[in-house]
């Protein structure tokens, strides 16, 4: 009897936790289709008017453009750097290797807000005040370790015999990389790239101090919109973000495994 109660209480707790995790997301999607001007539960009528309203906001459109360019730019710069670094770490037998690995993974343990502020101050001291450049540097550094990690994970599962066989058959360094190593680590590279895109696109803490009025990212534009008005257009734009990221999440789960990616 007590065991049944224990089991029932445990199931209720887990069920409530799943509800807790999903409720706010479901709520955002539900409210985005609200037809009324005020947010009420349940919505009295349904429409897409808030999607149109969100699209009409200059700050959201500008933010979408900045965030997209920034995410693509940072991911395209960080990924080759990360692939090269992971290959270097994988081959290195040098004593200083653990220190280099710690350096490359350091952005993981430094809070985003610290990355943003220290870059802001250091670049201001160098008289660099261009927001796009600041954002690109900050985002590239912040997402770099994820690429290093996913590529290292792929390299760790690589059979060294394949590379040796190619060498015995007379393939040079570049040919071995191009035709043996690269195809085998491609899932790791792509996972790091997509994950970097998501992180950069959704980032607030790194961008918070690096953006300015003319160059604002989408999440920051949503935050400042929320300070002045609280209408369902934020729900509409958030729903679009949820749809895009969940789509990419499913892609990542199929290609690499979300758990492996996030737990490293």
């Amino acid at each position, binding site marked *: 009897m007590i065991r049944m109660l224990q089991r029932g209480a445990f199931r209720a*707790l887990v069920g409530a936790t799943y509800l807790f995790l999903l409720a706010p997301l479901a709520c955002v999607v539900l409210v985005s289709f609200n037809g009324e001007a005020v947010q009420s539960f349940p919505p009295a009528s349904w429409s897409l008017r808030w999607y149109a309203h969100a699209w009409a906001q200059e700050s959201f459109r500008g933010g979408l453009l900045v965030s997209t360019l920034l995410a693509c730019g940072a991911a395209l710069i960080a990924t080759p750097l990360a692939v090269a670094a992971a290959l270097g770490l994988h081959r290195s037998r040098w004593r200083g290797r653990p220190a280099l690995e710690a350096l490359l993974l350091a952005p993981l343990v430094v*809070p985003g807000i*610290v990355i943003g502020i220290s870059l802001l*101050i*250091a670049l201001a001291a160098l008289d660099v005040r261009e927001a796009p450049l600041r954002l690109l540097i900050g985002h590239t550094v912040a997402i*770099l370790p994820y690429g290093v990690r996913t590529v290292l994970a792929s390299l760790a599962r690589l059979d060294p015999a394949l590379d040796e066989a190619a060498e015995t058959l007379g393939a040079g360094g570049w040919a071995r990389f191009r035709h043996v190593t690269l195809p085998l680590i491609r899932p790791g590279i792509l996972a790091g790239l997509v994950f970097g895109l998501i992180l950069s696109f959704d980032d607030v803490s790194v961008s918070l101090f690096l953006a300015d009025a003319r160059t604002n990212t989408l999440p920051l534009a949503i935050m400042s919109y929320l300070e002045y008005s609280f209408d369902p257009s934020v729900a509409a734009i958030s729903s679009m973000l*949820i749809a895009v990221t969940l789509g990419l999440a499913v892609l990542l789960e199929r290609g690499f495994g*979300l758990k492996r990616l996030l*737990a490293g």
Partner: protein
Amino acid sequence: MTVAAAGSLPGEAVPVAKGRPALAAALRHPAALLLLPACVAVAAGLLLPILYLLALSLNPPVTGEVALAGELTLRNYARLLDWFYFSVLLRTLWVSAVTTAISTVLGVAVAHSLWRTPPHRRGLLVVVVLAPLLVSIVARTFGWMLLLGDQGLVNAVLLRLGLVEAPLHLMFTQGAVIVGLVHVFLPFMVLSVLAAYDRIDPAIPEAAGTLGAGPFTVFRETILPLLNPGIAAGVTIVFSLAMSSYVTPALMGGSGAGVLTTLIYQQLVVTYDWHFAAALVAVLLASTLLLLGAVLYHNARRTRAWMTRPGSAPR
């Protein structure tokens, strides 16, 4: 070098001048060339800026000034002893601690149920738990604003059930911040604990069950001790993320619920006191890294002790 020399036996060769040739040799190696761009990027984009920030925090405060001065002072750090700023620090620690405690309980429960779920149904549930991590933190916080607002779902349900007369003011409180933070960081806890679960031999709890232990006793006596490293890792991650989170406290906290990050924002954007802000950032970074280091050190020691004493399980 002196430490290394003091620690070596007399007569043993001390590798004094090995650093420079080793570096030169490493640079000739292709691996070094591969590593160079990324290392330069992180050093220039993260390490040097942080060092600059730390140096600036030791300069006397001058509004809007970012150049380093020669004069060193601890005045910026001393300001933290002022009760207003000290209470912000205490509140930050308290909010982070409560968030971590709740996340630990819920995270272990969810990880346990995932571990119990048969593998073919587990994949979808893992995605349900982890997908929120990838959803914009602004969208997730906005969801909580919708739920907890005066006209939100929670109040609508409470009013309809007749449990309250007037809507409760749930938003813009410390409780709202904690709810939001738990939601944002719970998946990290689940991940860490799940990693520990994956290393548990299912025969151990089964054996305890066969010997007559109830499910709760099995959990407490056989599973929980094995989960310790995973829980420790999760606690570190969640606590440091909660300490440094900005969006949730800024959007869901009221004027009386300011935390370290919102104070930093205020100093940088409103009062332009960059030196004091640098000191606050240093405090934030130091507390995060100290905690991380302590847990890593503790885990490493335990792993070593376990490895050198075969036959005893890690506790």
